[in-house]
C-alpha cells in the first residue's frame, strides 16, 4: 500500500475503532447539545477541535513538546466528563455559552492531540526518517474519521428526535449521562493501573 494512503487509513481506523473510543466519545458528547438544524455550529465546533488537536499532534510528534502519556490518558476522559457536566448544567439558550463550547472544543482538542501522538509515535518508532508526510496523512485520516462519527451521530439523533419524537433535551441528557459514566470508568481504570 502507498505510504500516504496507509497513514490516512491508520488515522481513520484509530479514531473509529474501539482503541479511539475516548476521542469518539468526546466528539459525541460535544455535539450532543446541538440540533440537526444547527449543523453549521457542529461544523465550527469540529473545526475548533481539529485546530486544537492538530497543533499538539504536530508539536508532540515532532518532539517540540514532550508529554507524560499517563497524564494525557487521564486528562482525556476528564475532558469528556467536563463536557458532559457542562452540557447538563449550563443554562439553556445562552449565546455566550455557545462560544464557550468552541473554546472548550479547541482547548480540549489540544489534550486529545497529545493522545493521538502516542499512537502516531508508535507507528514511527525507529522508522522516522521524515515524519511530515505520514503526519499530514494521519491527521487527514483523523479528520475523515471524525466527520464519519459526526455524520453517523447526527443521523441517529435525527432518527430519535425526528422519528421517535424524543425531546432534544432528553436526548442530550441521555448522551451526556452515558458519556460521563464511561468517562468516569476510564478515569478509574487509568488511575488504577
Amino acid at each position: 500500500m502507498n505510504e500516504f494512503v496507509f497513514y490516512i487509513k491508520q488515522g481513520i481506523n484509530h479514531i473509529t475503532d474501539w482503541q479511539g473510543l475516548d476521542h469518539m466519545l468526546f466528539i459525541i458528547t460535544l455535539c450532543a447539545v446541538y440540533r440537526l438544524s444547527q449543523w453549521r455550529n457542529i461544523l465550527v465546533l469540529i473545526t475548533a477541535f481539529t485546530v486544537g488537536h492538530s497543533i499538539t499532534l504536530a508539536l508532540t510528534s515532532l518532539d517540540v513538546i514532550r508529554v507524560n502519556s499517563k497524564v494525557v490518558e487521564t486528562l482525556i476522559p476528564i475532558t469528556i466528563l467536563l463536557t458532559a457536566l457542562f452540557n447538563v448544567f449550563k443554562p439553556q439558550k445562552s449565546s455566550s455559552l455557545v462560544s464557550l463550547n468552541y473554546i472548550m472544543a479547541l482547548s480540549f482538542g489540544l489534550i486529545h492531540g497529545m493522545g493521538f501522538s502516542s499512537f502516531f509515535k508508535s507507528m514511527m518508532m525507529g522508522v522516522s526518517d521524515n515524519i511530515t508526510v505520514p503526519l499530514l496523512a494521519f491527521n487527514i485520516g483523523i479528520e475523515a474519521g471524525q466527520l464519519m462519527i459526526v455524520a453517523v451521530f447526527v443521523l441517529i439523533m435525527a432518527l430519535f428526535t425526528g422519528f421517535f419524537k424524543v425531546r432534544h433535551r432528553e436526548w442530550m441528557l441521555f448522551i451526556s449521562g452515558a458519556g460521563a459514566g464511561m468517562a468516569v470508568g476510564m478515569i478509574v481504570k487509568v488511575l488504577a493501573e
Partner: protein
Amino acid sequence: MMLLRYTVGVFLLTLLAFKANAHPIKMTTSKLLYDKKANELILTINFFEDDFSAQLEKLYHRKNIDFAVVDDTEGSMVAGYVAKKMLLKANKKPLTLQLSSIKRIEENVVQVKLILWLPKTKIKSLEISDALLFDAFAEQVNIMHVELPGTTSNVQQFISSDSYKVLKVNF
C-alpha cells in the same frame, strides 16, 4: 429535576455496565532495505522493549533480559524468535536471517538489525509475513515498510486478529 435524575440514572447505569478496555499500544515497526553492493537485504525491526523482553523471558525461561548488554545466548534467542515469526522468501525460497545488531534506540524501544543474503540469481519476487509478538498479544499490530529497487515505497500492516497474511513484492 426529573430530567436530572434521569441523567444520573443513565450515568450510573453506564458506569456499572462499561468496562474500560484501554490498553497500551502493542506494535512493532520494521523496515526492509536493499543493499545493492552487497546484494543483501537489511531488515530493521523495532520492538517495545518491555513487550519483547517479557515474551522472550516467557518463551526461553530467562529472567531480566537487558537489551543494553546482550550476550551471545540472548542474541541467538532474538535471532531465533525473529526467524520463527518472520518469514521472508525470495523467488519462493526462504531466506536465512543473520543477526547484525541489537540496540536500545530510545526509551523502551529496542532495535534489532538483521541481514539476509540474496541468491545470485535475479530476484523476481519477495514474500514477507510478519507475525512478531502475535503469540504474546491478541491486539498486536506490525507495520512493515519495504523499500526495494523497482518498487514504490510500500507499507503493509499485519494484525494479530487477521488470518495469515503475506506481502508479495514483484521486482
